[in-house]
């Protein structure tokens, strides 16, 4: 298991290099020059060149990449051009908010999604199944920002249970977690339901019935356990998405976070911040996949066998 973990970790190195290169290049392919945003109107070309030299923007691209990657690996992502602070500080300021929102939303979608999917599968074609699946269809088609607004109207404005926006107290997290989490609930529930129904058709399930095992035990100890394997895959893919993709929800609730940091700096063409936050997101996606692989190997002996 440990050798598997190390092997997977080493495999991430080339992926990381490729991703970092793409992140570095994308920013340079976007039109617009950050120096234009920095200098005053009517500055001379000399003044512009001086600024470009100060930030190293006059060097060839490959040199810029090497310098950037070298520094990034030693924990220095440079200084923000517009915000004039170290990028690492900006990320350190925003990341905890993203992590809290992401982790809670992921936990919420996992627990509620698996529960709803399992109920729908066990009571297949009944009223429970149809109701759950209708709600889930609704949940998966409503965009996050709109759902967020609806939740604010109901729970914050009408009922006054939670703050409308901000991140000052714990209860400000409830509505954003619900908004981000509900989308995940829909996904997880659908995957759980289909996987359980597929597993229920397997020969070994018939054998369990032939052994006289009570149906609830068959569903929970055997069928659900198999159905969790694809759910783990889906969840691990969602980790990166939740960290960075919650940006619209962050805007709706006026919350700080990696997503908002990325969008704001993208609008301002603040290269170092864009690169830094993209890199963080990429690392999150990679670690999410790694986590998914490890959990899957822990759950399925056949996966462990394949690794050897």
């Amino acid at each position, binding site marked *: 298991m440990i050798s598997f973990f190390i092997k997977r970790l080493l495999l991430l190195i080339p992926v990381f290099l490729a991703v970092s290169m793409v992140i570095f290049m994308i920013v340079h392919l976007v039109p617009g020059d950050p120096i234009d945003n920095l200098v005053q109107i009517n500055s001379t070309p000399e003044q512009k060149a001086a600024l470009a030299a100060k930030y190293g923007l006059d060097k060839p691209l490959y040199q810029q990449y090497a310098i950037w990657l070298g520094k990034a690996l030693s924990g220095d992502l440079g200084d923000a051009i517009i915000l004039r602070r170290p990028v690492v500080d900006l990320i350190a300021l925003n990341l905890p908010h993203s992590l809290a929102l992401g982790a809670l939303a992921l936990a919420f979608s996992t627990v509620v999604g698996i529960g709803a999917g399992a109920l729908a599968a066990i009571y297949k074609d009944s009223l429970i199944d149809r109701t759950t699946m209708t709600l889930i269809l609704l949940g998966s088609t409503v965009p996050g920002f709109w759902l967020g607004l609806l939740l604010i109207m109901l729970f914050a404005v009408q009922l006054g249970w939670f703050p409308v926006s901000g991140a000052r107290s714990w209860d400000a997290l409830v509505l954003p977690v619900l908004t981000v989490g509900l989308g995940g609930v829909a996904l997880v529930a659908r995957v759980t339901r289909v996987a359980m129904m597929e597993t229920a058709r*397997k020969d070994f399930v*018939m*054998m369990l019935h032939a052994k*006289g*095992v009570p149906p609830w035990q068959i569903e929970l100890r*055997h069928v659900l356990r198999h159905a969790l394997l694809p759910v783990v895959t889906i969840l691990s893919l969602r980790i990166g998405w939740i960290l960075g993709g919650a940006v619209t929800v962050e805007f709706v609730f006026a919350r700080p976070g990696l997503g908002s940091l990325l969008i704001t700096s993208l609008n301002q063409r603040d290269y170092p911040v864009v690169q830094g936050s993209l890199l963080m997101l990429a690392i999150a996606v990679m670690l999410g996949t790694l986590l998914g692989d490890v959990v899957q190997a822990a759950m399925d*002996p*056949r996966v462990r*066998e394949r690794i050897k």
Partner: protein
Amino acid sequence: MALLSVKDISVTIGKLNLLDGVAFDIGAGEILGLVGESGSGKSLTAMCVMGLLPRIGGRITEGSIIFDGREMIGLPEVELRHLRGKRIALISQNPMTSLDPIIRIGAQIDQVSTLHLGLSAEAAKARSLDLIAQLRIPEPEAIHGAYPHQLSGGMKQRIVIAMALAADPDLIVADEPTTALDVTIQAQIIQIMVELVRDRGLALMLITHDMGVVAQACDRVVVLYAGRVAETNTVEAIFAEPHHPYTRELIRCIPRLGQAPGSLKGIPGAVPSVVDYPAGCRFNSRCGAAEDLCRNTVPALERKTSGLAACHFSEV
């Protein structure tokens, strides 16, 4: 009194009438062979006896199944569950897919004895280890902790047999237990199974399409053809004097040592499809001696010199 008595059961799935008045008895400690080609209704009969027919969408429309003096048809699921695994156990057709692939072998055998005999975890494990050893599997302790994919097909089928024996049932239903295995180990598995069943005095309903296996293992035979019983008799009598032409054909199809090359021929034609069973005797389309009577009138299952057969023309 018979341990299991299947009385004229008819079974439908959707609009198809798959079994038509199938009847046979199994005495305590008796090994009954249920033979017939694919599509004759052997596995379906097994499902009826296990009380699992509703799981595959089937329904018993007529007849009754009496196990140990109790009617099984109409029994609530909870009570059927206490029969399944505890008093009637199943050995399935395909050992490769019959075990849960992500649960250790041992836990899957232990499950039966903890569930039905109320054994503690340690007692169940000890019992399973003993069973594994009785099935002549080396290193029971290692096998107990292994996962299904680490075992060969033959080993897995032995585990399925161990699972069937775990709660000391009275009747074992073995549905073509060796069909999915290599020919080289088929005889071995049958031999071990029959030995263990005889030692314990259990009844066994052995489903097979192999008359050779019947000759090797069974006390009595029921020959099924297209959802009906064609003939039933003791093994000695059926091989000595088959009454039904289908039984004669089945026996003719057993390969023998010293047979001239090319002389082994199958039964011409195929089992008719359930959607167009012929009227009268269902074997008439493949029978060399069929006459108008056979094409119009269903032959009753009648007592012959020994055993029962459903043929208008078999010598009495």
